[in-house]
């Protein structure tokens, strides 16, 4: 059987089983007829939020990997996720009357959070591009991303310690920073779904441009690609996708790295196949990661980002080792 067909079959089976398991596993007893509908509704929103976050991060990963022509790039490694998370924390504080008191606090938090995250993601990407310039090598890009990420995390930590004065707010900031789709409802889905769906459709529409960019910017330009325009839009839509995903899932790492990489080896490098496969693959990966957070025996809740990190970090190390062995790191 064709590898791409096999991959799609596996993806669909994994998506269906994730949906089924996600609805049947978790706190609360579905046998209780009085509460059954409520549990199912909560779990449905949770499932949809996890899938949207995964899809957004994975397609964002495809976009930045295309932009940097580098399979080791991803929103979390480049500091984009951390930037989005910091943007989210900032807006959380602002909206709760912290720092500035004259905010229109009657606007619900769910509505403004994605825009905080989106702006954070966009600013993080712009700083990265300003520092690394147009023709930086792999190491420069990865190191800059690492440093940006650490910086944003440190800033977030500082904000958290300031926010601790207000216990409720401190808790909200911690819960947002750790990530997770528990307690995320329909409002989150309604806000993130359009951003993730439109972002993914746009990425699909740019497929041919991204294919041509595989040959480098000069060659792509000689083939008729408007390289500047592609760079600009890729940055905007990566920020949208990452921002939306972080707004509903928090700082969920490595999805944008692992999913496109695995998909590429099954459906190939052409973006018309890679974008939809990564969309579904990301949704399935995070949905299963969220299921794991519920079934792993632990005191309290295991954060979603911890599960994706435990899977993603080793995969990243393997890829990095392979790149070094093949002499692709310069």
């Amino acid at each position: 059987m064709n590898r791409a067909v096999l991959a799609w079959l596996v993806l669909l089976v994994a998506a269906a089983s994730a949906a089924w398991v996600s609805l049947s596993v978790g706190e609360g007893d579905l046998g209780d007829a009085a509460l059954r509908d409520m549990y199912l509704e909560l779990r449905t929103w949770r499932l949809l939020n996890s899938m949207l976050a995964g899809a957004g991060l994975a397609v964002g990963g495809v976009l930045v990997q295309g932009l940097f022509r580098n399979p080791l790039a991803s929103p979390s490694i480049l500091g984009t996720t951390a930037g989005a998370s910091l943007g989210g924390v900032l807006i959380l504080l602002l909206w709760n009357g912290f720092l500035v008191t004259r905010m229109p606090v009657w606007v619900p938090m769910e509505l403004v959070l994605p825009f905080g995250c989106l702006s954070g993601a966009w600013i993080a990407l712009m700083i990265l591009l300003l520092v690394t310039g147009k023709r930086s090598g792999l190491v420069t890009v990865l190191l800059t991303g690492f440093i940006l990420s650490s910086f944003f995390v440190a800033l977030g930590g500082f904000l958290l310690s300031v926010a601790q004065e207000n216990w409720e707010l401190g808790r909200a900031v911690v819960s947002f920073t750790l990530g997770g789709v528990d307690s995320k409802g329909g409002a989150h889905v309604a806000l993130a779904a359009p951003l993730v769906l439109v972002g993914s459709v746009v990425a699909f529409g740019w497929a041919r441009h991204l294919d041509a960019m595989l040959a480098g910017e000069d060659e792509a330009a000689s083939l008729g690609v408007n390289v500047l325009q592609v760079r600009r839009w890729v940055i905007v839509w990566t920020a949208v996708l990452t921002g939306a995903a972080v707004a509903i899932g928090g700082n969920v790492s490595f999805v944008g790295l692992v999913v496109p990489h695995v998909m590429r080896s099954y459906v190939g490098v052409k973006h018309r196949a890679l974008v939809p496969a990564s969309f579904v693959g990301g949704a399935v990966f995070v949905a299963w990661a969220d299921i794991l957070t519920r079934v792993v025996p632990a005191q309290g809740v295991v954060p979603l980002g911890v599960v994706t990190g435990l899977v993603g970090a080793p995969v990243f190390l393997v890829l990095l080792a392979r790149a070094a062995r093949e002499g692709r790191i310069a």
Partner: protein
Amino acid sequence: MTTGIRVEGLSASYRNKQVLFDVSCQAQPGEITALLGPNGSGKSTLLKATLGLIPASGEVHINGQPLDSLVPAQRAREVAYVPQRTQLMARLSVTEVVELGRFAHRGPLAVRTAADREAVELALESAGVASLATRSFLELSGGERQRVLLARALATGSKTLLLDEPTSALDVRQVLSIHGVLRRLAEEGCCILVVLHGLFEAYQNADQAVLLHRGRVQQQGAVAEVLRPEVVEEVYGVRMEAASAWKFSLPEESQ
């Protein structure tokens, strides 16, 4: 209408250093024009400025049209580029690489048309790589890759080809095969401007030559006129003498 490439008063910088000074030259259809000069004389910069890949002052006309009047897709249909070494490191088949040449002919969501398929097949055939169509690009030898990149340039449908040292890393057989393809294309009316490193290679294969020295045109004209001992000595600092030399050619059946 004027056809081919006409460059007038072109100046360009690379990494904050001026590399080209008031360069004027041209290349005609039906001919192979070699772009020559020592290392650092500005050959690749001139090629990239002619393609509009780097900013430059002065005028470039492609088939009679000013370069700045063309949007990227129009430009790609008028002039095609074969880089010295491709940056393409993705797992694509030879056909998929050549299909990239059709980029400028399709709308944003348009699917492959019969015209696209035909152009790709013709390009594979012309560059002599039809037998490699289903192979992975990354598995090919240097010479095969270069011919696939030539096929990608041909798939753009443009009759003006700019090549940057396409033979620099190739063995003698591969070099002859590339020049065989270029000669046939010139005979079909293509305008070919090719950066070459070897003077003997240029002498054997080109019709015209443009010789650059420190960012300026030192000589241009028929290749035998340009490559005279006194010119070569001035530009390269070497003595050139006529001598009997080896001559290489491909056996009949593999041409």
